């Protein structure tokens, strides 16, 4: 558009002679200015339009996250309802026998729930104490330089894909455990539980450390000035003050362990026995979903729908944990 105006001005200048240049140029300029005002008005209305459209567009983008949630809920609920039409909901949640592929299939979710809870328990037995102790070291004892080295290295652990941990559990940790304890099966719940624990350490360490670092120094100094050692200060002042954050980090760790899939799928096998023997193979909810969806479950069959009923249970478990973590860290946070 500018080029057009420029052409227009040059044409005007060309038509008018040298003699009348001054007056004609003034005339040309005035034309030019009114043109430009018109142009600007035009541009303004376009940019006004943009200004009005952009928020709407961005709003629609923001709605995609809401749609994702609705999509998950709709998918899980609608298909799980189909499942509960074929298998009574009471039988599903109290059944201890899971035989989806047999002639007379039985769908009891308890073996999966026990597998999930046992692997989570083993993982937290590793990740809880070690994560918390790492957090204490990083926040209370380590010098700035040491922390600057250790913390990113610890975070590498969190960045390693879970499939790699699965490989590690299956080909290294399980054979190692079997050397020491020959009763342990080639697939068992113990080894993936332990490896899962290692995977969750950095999560608990980093969240707990955040909670402890946000305890004001005045409180530490008060305790130290009273003659307490660093250890006493940590256990009697810092940890109580950061307690809500620490509990929240544990709850999030549990949620992560419940939802973890590949480690248990690879290293714990697919036995659906209702057992509490950690040396044996057990299937978790997540591993069941992988097995059934990866297998030949035709869409529309009961076993296909069972996938969604199990996933719905898993979703509710993790949702409760996540909401609990948020509730704990909000409700019991001490303000300083």
């Amino acid at each position, binding site marked *: 558009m500018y080029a057009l105006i420029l052409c227009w001005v040059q044409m005007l200048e060309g038509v008018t002679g040298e003699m009348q240049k001054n007056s004609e140029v003034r005339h040309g300029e005035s034309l030019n200015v009114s043109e430009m005002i018109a142009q600007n008005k035009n541009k303004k209305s376009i940019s006004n339009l943009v200004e009005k459209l952009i928020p709407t567009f961005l709003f629609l983008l923001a709605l995609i996250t809401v749609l994702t949630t609705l999509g998950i809920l709709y998918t899980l609920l609608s298909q799980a309802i189909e499942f509960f039409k074929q298998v009574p909901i009471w039988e599903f949640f109290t059944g201890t026998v899971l035989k989806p592929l047999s002639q007379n299939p039985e769908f009891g979710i308890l073996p999966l729930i026990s597998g999930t809870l046992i692997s989570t328990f083993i993982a937290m037995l590793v990740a809880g104490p070690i994560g918390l102790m790492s957090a204490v070291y990083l926040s209370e004892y380590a010098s700035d330089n040491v922390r600057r080295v250790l913390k990113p290295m610890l975070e590498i652990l969190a960045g390693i894909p879970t499939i790699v941990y699965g490989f590690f559990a299956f080909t290294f940790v399980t054979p190692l455990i079997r050397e020491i304890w020959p009763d342990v099966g080639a697939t068992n719940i113990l080894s993936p539980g332990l490896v899962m624990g290692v995977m969750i350490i950095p999560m608990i360490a980093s969240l707990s450390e955040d909670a402890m670092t946000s305890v004001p120094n005045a409180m530490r100094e008060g305790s130290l000035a009273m003659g307490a050692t660093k250890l006493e200060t940590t256990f009697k002042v810092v940890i109580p003050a950061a307690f809500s954050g620490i509990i929240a980090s544990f709850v999030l760790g549990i949620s992560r362990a419940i939802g973890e899939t590949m480690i248990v799928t690879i290293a714990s096998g697919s036995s659906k026995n209702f057992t509490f023997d950690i040396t044996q193979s057990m299937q978790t909810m997540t591993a069941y979903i992988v097995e059934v*969806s990866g297998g030949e479950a035709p869409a529309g069959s009961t076993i296909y729908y069972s996938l969604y009923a199990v996933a719905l249970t898993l979703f509710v478990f993790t949702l409760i944990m*996540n909401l609990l973590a948020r509730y704990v860290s909000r409700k019991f946070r001490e303000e300083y």
Partner: protein
Amino acid sequence: MIKQMDASQLRSRMNRRVRANTVWKTIFLLATLFGLFVLAILIIRVVSQGASWIDMDFLTGRLSTDAERAGIMGALLGTVWVMFVVIPVTLIIGVGTAIYLELYAKKGKFQSFIETNISNLAGVPSIVYGLLGLTVFVRLADLGNVVLAGGLTLALLVLPILIVSAQEAIRAVPAHLSEASYGMGATKWQTIRRVVLPAALPSILTGSILALSRAIGETAPLTVLGIPALLIPFPEGLFDTFTALPMQIYYWTLDSSLVAEYANLAAATIIVLLVLLFVLNSVAIFIRNKFQQRY
């Protein structure tokens, strides 16, 4: 009444407390090193097992049941194609949502509803996203288990991560920059496009690379989508079936109880995946250090 205390008794008590402090300090340090110790074992184990299997034939070869001839070109290409879907989808939706939440949305119930929703989505297990992708993209949209379906599923999975990091990046742009822009007569969108976004770009890119590296390491959703690791042609577009590096690792690990060499192939593929992730993360750190301005 003050209790009388013997000086030697006091000293021994004091010594005990100080010693407890030292002992526990060592225990805390060992606990911190434990994670790194396992990390070291893991890496040493994988490298010693797989490094000798990596050569040009392995990287550029086709999949084969013969362990000596098997290659991972198909999986590599599949992962790259998936990245081509994940990057634009997450960037557009993620940054758009972040701009909306930080700069346009009125602080109130709706905005906090969306933010709560996003943080809940971040906690949903990845396998549930797999079921969403299977139901919506593979079955309902009838795409089949193609690159587009896999990419969109993974994009939705990492979207919350990107949104949160983009929000932080935008929040970190100091107000005086945008106020100066408004003072010069710029409109809100002009200010966002020419001042806020350029200033936040390095952090946004860092966040998006980290989200991307999460996406390419994910396996669980892909197993649900039914991504194969069979002898399929190399993917050449968004609507081709594909396999990806983590799926390749998964199948080789599972089959290692049948053919022992498959464990080595899995280890070699893990090295490739870890190197890829390492490069991505280094780029992210480089961008953050190089371009981030302190105001």
